[in-house]
């Protein structure tokens, strides 16, 4: 069984290095500030006994007043997992750091989120629409985008 690591334990370890990074620790997830995302991710990836070398998925949820990005990290060596979340509270121009340098698997998923949710990923090498065509108005998965705006 993949062990879901307790987020408070991880939070304790992170506190030494990134004292201001952690917003909240829930039972199943760890919510961090967007500014520290890349640093914490690379810490989680490179620390020997954590070694989250596999990024299972990235997704984004629109909570109307903020966007929440969800990263599920897995270690294929130690067989444990962690859900990392970050909240993006700039509804006009949401920007988050890109994870492509750490995990290549983030490439298409970030493009997908950019396409459907309209979140810009800083440092992504090829950030453009992936599913919809160039010139499509709006981002369909946002809650303010009702289902039948387009025809």
């Amino acid at each position: 069984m993949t062990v879901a690591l307790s987020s408070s334990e991880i939070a304790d370890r992170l506190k030494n290095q990134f004292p201001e990074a952690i917003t909240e620790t829930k039972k199943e997830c760890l919510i961090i500030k967007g500014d520290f995302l890349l640093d914490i991710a690379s810490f989680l990836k490179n620390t020997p006994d954590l070694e989250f070398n596999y990024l299972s998925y990235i997704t984004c949820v629109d909570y109307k007043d903020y966007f929440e990005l969800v990263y599920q990290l897995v270690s294929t060596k130690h067989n444990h997992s962690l859900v990392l979340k970050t909240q993006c509270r700039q509804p006009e121009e949401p920007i988050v750091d890109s994870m492509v340098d750490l995990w290549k698997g983030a490439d298409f998923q970030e493009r997908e989120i950019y396409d459907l949710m309209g979140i810009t990923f800083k440092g992504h090498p090829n950030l453009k629409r992936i599913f919809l065509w160039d010139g499509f108005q709006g981002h369909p998965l946002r809650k303010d985008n009702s289902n039948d705006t387009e025809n």
Partner: protein
Amino acid sequence: MEVESKYIYPNLELDRDEGEVIKALQEKSQKIIPDPDAWLSEELNRNVLLTTVDGILNWSRRSSLWTVICFPACCAFEFIGAASPRFDIARFGMEIIRASPRQADLMITAGTLTWKMAPQVKRIYEQMAEPKWVIAMGACAISGGLFNDSYSVVPGYNHIIPVDVYIPGCPPRPESLLYGIEKLRGKIRKRSTIKEDK
């Protein structure tokens, strides 16, 4: 081996052009294109006389319907199922699936059509040489089906190209595909090539 840039050809301009084509097509195709062969149902009024030449031409056309590849989604597997040993569409001489639209007669539109795909389908249809027919296979091809209310789905192929035969089902079974093809043959049988002056 290290590739220098992420993508040698980012092709941003190409993307933009394609986006414009899609947009133009979307605006243009809000109405359903009527079936050009609708007059066939009122056959008696027109009093069609078929000549022997017509008979031979129609025989040859309905006996060798070559399909073009246009299989976007789920229904494709029921088409392949129809071509597989069990249903064996080859009995009717239809196992030749031409990948090049120039040499094909029949387009079986098996699957959901999105606006991004629409210009390609239209182009394939236009590349096909006359005479050509279209079968809309499955609910998505007829009306958008389950995805009718989506932001990216074309509600039916008949917004883009004229359709001759509709086969309902999600997906239609191979038997119903064969029945639909049989209907199309009936339609071809009534066609008059000689009289049709356009």
